[in-house]
């Protein structure tokens, strides 16, 4: 890790701690995009054609397949306290979508993601967020659910539906082998959340694509709409990676997220 990267990482951790966020994230500062670290760490995969992400002015390197994919060596865990950090990986469905269907989500789950999750589990990861930028727009929940069964349960898994309306997926995801579902409430109405939802909701209440700073009181009032629907838990999160705003704005958004959480109290975490 370069000196600058290390310095940025420490700064990011400090901001999260000051905002009262827990668990902590490494911010994926060393990752060029969501798929590339794993694609480069696996046999049979290569990251090459530049492809625009739906919904953001960002790109990823689409994944080419030239053999049976297999993780050569797991990505190292971040330097964060054991039991208090969250790791982010692509969901199996998203990973396969980035490969444009050239490899199945099941194969990627079993041979690349599963060993990676096991490695991070042993390294003290508290939660693994499977980022899913495609499903809310174009896929069926069933396509994403099956490969999830190939993932180990040694650490809680969350499926985060980034920047999309999750309404039509929530019922089916209630049956998924995951502990939590991330929902973008800038695109999903609050009443789309079924009552007594059996999963924890990672409530995306900070808009990672907007420079406008959230009012903690507005977040609080919105969360008060969610609480009566009685999901198994509520955590407050951004609705996607904060890489879509400048560092200064991202920092302020985290502070405001922390303030909202403090106002709401112990009913939710952040």
């Amino acid at each position, binding site marked *: 890790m370069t000196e600058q990267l290390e310095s940025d990482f420490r700064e990011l951790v400090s901001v999260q701690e000051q905002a009262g966020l827990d668990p902590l994230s490494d911010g994926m500062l060393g990752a*060029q*995009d969501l798929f590339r670290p794993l694609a480069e760490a696996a046999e049979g995969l290569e990251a090459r*054609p*530049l*492809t*625009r*992400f*739906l*919904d*953001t*002015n*960002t*790109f*990823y390197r*689409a994944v080419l397949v030239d053999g049976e994919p297999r993780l050569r060596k797991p990505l190292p865990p971040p330097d964060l306290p054991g039991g208090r950090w969250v790791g982010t990986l692509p969901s199996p469905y998203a990973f396969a979508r980035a490969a444009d269907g050239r490899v199945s989500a099941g194969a990627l789950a079993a041979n690349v993601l599963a060993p990676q999750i096991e490695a991070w589990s042993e390294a003290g990861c508290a939660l693994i967020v499977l980022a899913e930028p495609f499903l809310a*727009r174009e896929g069926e929940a069933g396509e994403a659910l099956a490969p999830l069964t190939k993932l180990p349960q040694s650490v809680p898994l969350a499926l985060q539906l980034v920047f999309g*309306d999750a309404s039509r997926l929530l019922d089916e995801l209630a049956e998924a082998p995951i502990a939590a579902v991330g929902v973008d*409430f*800038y*695109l999903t*109405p*609050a009443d789309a959340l079924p009552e007594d939802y059996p999963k924890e909701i990672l409530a995306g*209440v900070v*808009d990672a*694509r*907007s*420079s*406008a700073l*959230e009012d903690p009181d*507005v*977040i609080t009032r*919105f969360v008060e*709409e969610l609480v009566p629907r009685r999901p198994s838990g509520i955590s407050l999160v951004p609705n996607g990676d904060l*890489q*879509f*705003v*400048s*560092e*200064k*704005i991202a920092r302020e958004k985290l502070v405001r997220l922390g303030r909202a959480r403090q106002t709401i109290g112990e009913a939710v975490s952040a």
Partner: protein
Amino acid sequence: MSIQFVTREIGSLAKPSWRVKTFAGRPLEDNDVAEAERWGKRLEVDGYEELVEGLGRGTLERSEIDDWAAVYALRLLERAGIDVVYDGEQRRTEMYDHVAAHARGFEPRGTVRSFDNKYYAKAAVVEQPSVTGSQDVDEFRFVRDHTDRIVKVPLTGAYTMVDWSYDEHYSREGALGASAERRYDARRRFVADVAEHVIRPNVEGLVNTDAQWIQIDEPAATTKPDEVPLVVLGFNAATKGIGPEVKKSMHICFSDYSALWPHVLELEDCLELQLEFANRDSRELGTRDEDRPGYRDTLRLFKEHGYPDVGLGVLDIHSDFVEPSALVRDRILYAVKTLDDPGRIQINPDCGLRTRSWEVVYEKLINMVEGTRLAEEVLNRTSAAAARA
């Protein structure tokens, strides 16, 4: 009648180090001046010695350096054999900031990552955007006066300006939990205002200065597939009132083209869509479906819908791989075979070439032109043989 394709660039070229450093206030080194001399000789730029001397002595104004950079870019394209040219956008910072910094109503909000470790400056709209005049008329006049080729003016489209901006005006209130209809209406108003009050004044000024071809760049066109109708709205509003004597086209890249149809059928008087294809294609030769995975599905959409025509991207602009002319030839031949109408096809790189060195760009463009001539030979030979039979 023989088949002859028109070759074009898309827009940007890298800026020479002597231009970049001058504008950044950094001192030039000997190798910067040597580069100006080397390319001046290579491209046979008239009077390049004046630039070299001025750079060496530090006596040139910034505006003069901008002029030289534009001339060098024009000569590079001309010497490579390109038929339709511009100045490599040498005077523009980049396609987004060039517009946002000029227009009223945008405020900077820092830099964000675009891809790999590339970042761009992003602004927020804070009031209805507007401009006081045509932004690019002087730039166009200079190009027109310094080339005998056809000139095509690239302009950033309204939708892309909207999609790449933060919105602190149109959807300011109640974003958390807002309805889809309310969000869409805010986007529609934002696009319409940028098209009408920012882009169209520029288009009108250019056309009044005798610009013959306006290219609207909409790389963000399919980032939100349900908003493709807003891309169309932006194009039509920006070019409203411009007669058919002026060519109008649209460039889109690195996108999901399947989302474009049927909406793009509503584009008014749009000559063609210039799209990126080579980035997603194989580098092997061949003209079968399986040889050309980057072209197959999208060209079928052009074929199926019959409108608009296609600007065929044949150079991958994010790679230093120099496409052999035979590969360019095969990409064109495959497109002709798929569309069954060579009259609907013209040739260009995938996108602007600003991320490549001039060395690589020059080789790529020369091969693009050569590959185009090879394709024409094959098609005309085949056509002649059929006529004889």
